[in-house]
């Protein structure tokens, strides 16, 4: 039954890609059919994946298609089911949000059709990756996802920025895909088969295991956006249409996390502790650098993209802890780390797509993506502001919303580090927890900046002042996600109980302790060790609020509320330019963590067209300057060297062919 539903999801996605082709140029029909079928695909995915997850069972299917010697293997187990639910949730919301959002593109120079076709293929590819049970099907789905992702990023290809971002994305995706292919190759070589059962049975030496692990970590890491492989993310997310950014950031990165979990926990077999340590360190670096780079951005969608790097880092911290515990024969704690990482994957999908949808609404209504031109949007767009605020609270890991629960679980896993025999690991893990704490606090600072600058205060441009609330479909989409953020924050016990089917399958141990206290209490290790009563927290806040509000209600107090001008120190009216800007807000942090960014700062002299001079500030990314530009230079230089053999003389070329032939003959014979 679950696998059938998953099939239906695939078919709906395919139909959503193909059926609108029959509509010709009628935008309305295209939109209706494509998004309706996309939504149905999402719903079927949620149903199928959810059933598999709840039942904790695996379903297998072999199709007689594919390569001549390799049938296509499909499976649906709790792990793929869980990620299928994530894909489904965001897809459904995107289908609700999309029709109103793409209205903007109808008048644009592009046809609508490519957008809907590749959105559907994108979802199809992700679902296929999750269902795949052999390397060939997996890579097929992976490439479908990557290439349709490219088509979506490059959709508005009249802009130079979009083309270059899409090219970087495509290039890095393919390097990543190559590495993943090689990683599967190592496993397939030892396991004598391309399907996952053979691969899981492969006996690897530590050396070959490490090679396979390193290839997988890099390959999936590029797609997930780990530091320093993250550079495509902040380029591609801002230029894609917002509902696509939401899906890329919320879901596609999770598919990469799925690939990594599947490869490491399921296929690779015995995990070595040093791999776990590497994952933990990379996770810490990604989390911290991601949030620090995000703080310096003033393009809203670019900022959110850097936050994806941060959150992927947090997920990898959980995975690293889980791997370290698993390699030290502590499966119960490994399960805790894995559950924390999976829970955060779900949460990140929800709040990050919520924030991207919010950014899309702002973009559509005010045509601004620069924080420096926003301000006061809460007046024109109160509903969007409310939902965006919930997203901000959730991503900043504040109780009682969902982001807090998963970070709390990660902290709990880290605090059990003393159970390890190695003292070095035991003292490194709490430091990782401190990094996580710093990350969370900086994220809160960053989202105070975002919300404060974009929605509060006075409008900094005419467009922001004129911004009106977005269409109902877009609001409903955001409302659903905001509600889910709250629900998954308030009922963590149920969620953890369901997710623990995954470690039960992968590690043989669930988290029986976590749900022992009933639905009200989340007790991951034991009631004495730590407990969190999320529903009680919400109830407590509401009760305290109600009490204070009723005690102090104006009618009882007989005190009036007058509206007056803001205090201007007696110097005359305040204007929008006197407010703190996003750059100013982040300045203390920029000064404290100075070496983290390549900062270009200078005062520009006064000129005729720029009276009063100006101040130039550019905060770059070290990864570009120290790694990618260097690689680019080396590649160009070696290409120039290699160009020497191209003399343009036909006789020389014939000689090359002759030598090559001789060489090949020598090799073969």
């Amino acid at each position, binding site marked *: 039954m679950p696998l059938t539903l998953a099939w239906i999801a695939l078919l709906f996605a395919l139909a959503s890609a193909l059926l609108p082709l029959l509509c010709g140029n009628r935008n309305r029909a295209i939109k209706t059919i494509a998004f309706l079928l996309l939504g149905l695909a999402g719903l079927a995915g949620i149903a199928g994946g959810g059933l598999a997850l709840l039942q904790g069972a695996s379903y297998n299917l072999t199709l007689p298609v594919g390569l001549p010697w390799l049938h296509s293997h499909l499976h649906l187990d709790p792990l793929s089911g869980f990620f299928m639910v994530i894909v489904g949730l965001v897809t459904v919301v995107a289908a609700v949000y999309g029709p109103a959002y793409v209205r903007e593109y109808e008048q644009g120079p592009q046809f609508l059709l490519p957008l809907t076709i590749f959105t559907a293929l994108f979802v199809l590819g992700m679902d296929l990756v999750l269902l795949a049970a052999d390397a060939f099907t997996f890579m097929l789905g992976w490439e479908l996802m990557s290439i349709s992702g490219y088509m979506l990023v490059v959709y508005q290809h009249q802009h130079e920025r979009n083309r270059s971002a899409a090219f970087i994305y495509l290039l890095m995706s393919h390097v990543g895909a190559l590495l993943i292919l090689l990683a599967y190759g190592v496993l397939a070589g030892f396991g004598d088969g391309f399907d996952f059962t053979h691969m899981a049975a492969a006996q690897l030496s530590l050396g070959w295991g490490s090679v396979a692990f390193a290839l997988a970590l890099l390959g999936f890491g590029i797609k997930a956006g780990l530091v320093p492989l993250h550079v495509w993310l902040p380029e591609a997310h801002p230029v894609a249409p917002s509902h696509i950014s939401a899906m890329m950031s919320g879901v596609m990165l999770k598919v990469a996390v799925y690939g990594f979990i599947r490869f490491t926990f399921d296929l690779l077999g015995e995990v070595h502790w040093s791999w776990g340590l590497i994952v933990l360190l990379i996770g810490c670096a990604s989390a911290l650098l991601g949030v620090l780079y995000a703080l310096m951005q003033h393009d809203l969608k670019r900022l959110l993209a850097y936050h994806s790097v941060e959150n992927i880092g947090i997920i990898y911290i959980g995975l690293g802890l889980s791997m370290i515990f698993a390699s030290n024969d502590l499966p119960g704690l490994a399960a805790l780390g894995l559950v924390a990482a999976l829970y955060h994957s779900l949460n990140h999908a929800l709040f990050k797509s919520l924030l991207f949808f919010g950014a899309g609404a702002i973009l559509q209504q005010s045509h601004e993506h620069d924080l420096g031109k926003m301000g006061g949007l809460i007046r024109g767009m109160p509903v969007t502001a409310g939902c965006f605020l919930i997203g901000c609270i959730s991503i900043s890991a504040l109780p009682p919303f969902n982001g807090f629960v998963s970070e709390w679980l990660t902290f709990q896993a880290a605090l059990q580090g003393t159970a390890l025999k190695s003292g070095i690991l035991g003292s490194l893990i709490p430091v990782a927890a401190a990094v996580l704490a710093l990350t969370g606090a900086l994220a809160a600072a960053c989202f*105070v900046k975002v919300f404060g600058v974009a929605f509060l205060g006075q409008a900094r441009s005419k467009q922001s002042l004129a911004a009106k609330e977005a269409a109902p479909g877009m609001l409903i989409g955001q409302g659903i996600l905001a509600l889910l953020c709250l629900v998954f924050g308030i009922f963590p016990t149920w969620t953890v109980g369901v997710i623990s089917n995954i470690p039960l399958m992968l590690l043989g141990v669930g988290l029986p302790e976590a749900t022992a206290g009933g639905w009200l209490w989340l007790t991951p290790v034991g009631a004495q060790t730590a407990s969190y009563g999320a529903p009680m927290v919400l109830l407590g806040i509401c009760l305290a609020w109600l009490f204070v509000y009723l005690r102090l209600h104006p009618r009882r107090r007989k005190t009036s509320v007058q509206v007056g001008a803001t205090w201007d120190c007696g110097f005359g009216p305040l204007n929008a330019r006197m407010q703190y800007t996003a750059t100013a807000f982040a300045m203390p942090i920029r000064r404290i963590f100075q070496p983290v960014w390549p900062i270009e700062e200078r005062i520009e002299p006064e000129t005729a067209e720029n009276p009063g001079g100006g101040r130039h500030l550019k905060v770059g990314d070290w990864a570009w300057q120290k790694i990618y530009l260097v690689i680019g230079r080396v590649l160009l230089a070696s290409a120039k060297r290699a160009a020497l053999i191209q003399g343009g003389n036909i006789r020389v070329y014939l000689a090359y062919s002759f030598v090559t032939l001789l060489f090949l003959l020598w090799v073969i014979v």
Partner: protein
Amino acid sequence: MNGWALAVIQAGLLAFGAPFLAGWVKWVKCKLQCRQGPSPWQPYRNLSKLFRKDIVISEQASPVFRMAPYLVFSVTALAGSVMPFVAIGLPTSAIADVIVLVGFFALARFFLALAGMDVGTAFGGMGSSREMTISSLAEPAILMAVFTLAMTVSSTNLASMISHLLVEPFQLYPSFIFAGMGLLLVTVAETGRIPVDNPATHLELTMIHEAMILEYSGRHLALMEWAAMLKLMIYGVLIANLFIPWGIALELTPLALAIGLVAITGKLAVLGVVLAVAETSLAKMRFFRVPQFLGLAFILCLLGMLSHVILEVR
């Protein structure tokens, strides 16, 4: 049911005792500086007067501005209600462990900072920016300190931490000394006291907390001020009960509770004097010196954690 009633009474005591602590610190400080000084009860008079006053709200203010005081106060009060104040073993302490407690403060601060940004003045933005910067450095240090303690007693639940320390035979843990010193430094930063912030200043270049609440008046201002006092109180109780746990009521008998109340009052009074002495003898720091101050706190907590791993495990 008994326990819940006691928990509510305890939370009330904490909330209504908080202004006295703030007044006490100020009184001791004035005496140390050979000034007359207002009586320790003055904060109550200030609050009740503010509650009776009319409110003026800026025309730029959004709903966030009007919501924030209530939210900040309720979240801080909720944080107070999960603290073991007079007794441990009350049902509320299971709602939140110490990480959630830090989360509560972060939530309150989030809305405080948003309220500062709301009316769109330079002061508010400046205060919010500084507050978020300082807190983002302070939060890891706090968590590091409580992690050190949590690893020693293998629990993050405040009540079980304290009861574990009381039940086990007394032992001087080196890690506790480091963590305690670190936590003291962080508390100064988090509650906005000298040398990090000056609660008495309205000088634009130095204020942090006051800058954020500059636009508030009437009951909104009262709630914000009260929440700040409550926060000081909660940090005081946290330090007092974690590092000097003796005296807290282990069972819910009237005698034990009375002893508990006297003990915590005494401990807080002493802590208040310590804070007043520190505030009198130190000068306010330049803002960009604060990271070094908090770095010191973090290093102390880190040393505590390392000494726990090296000296105390097994």
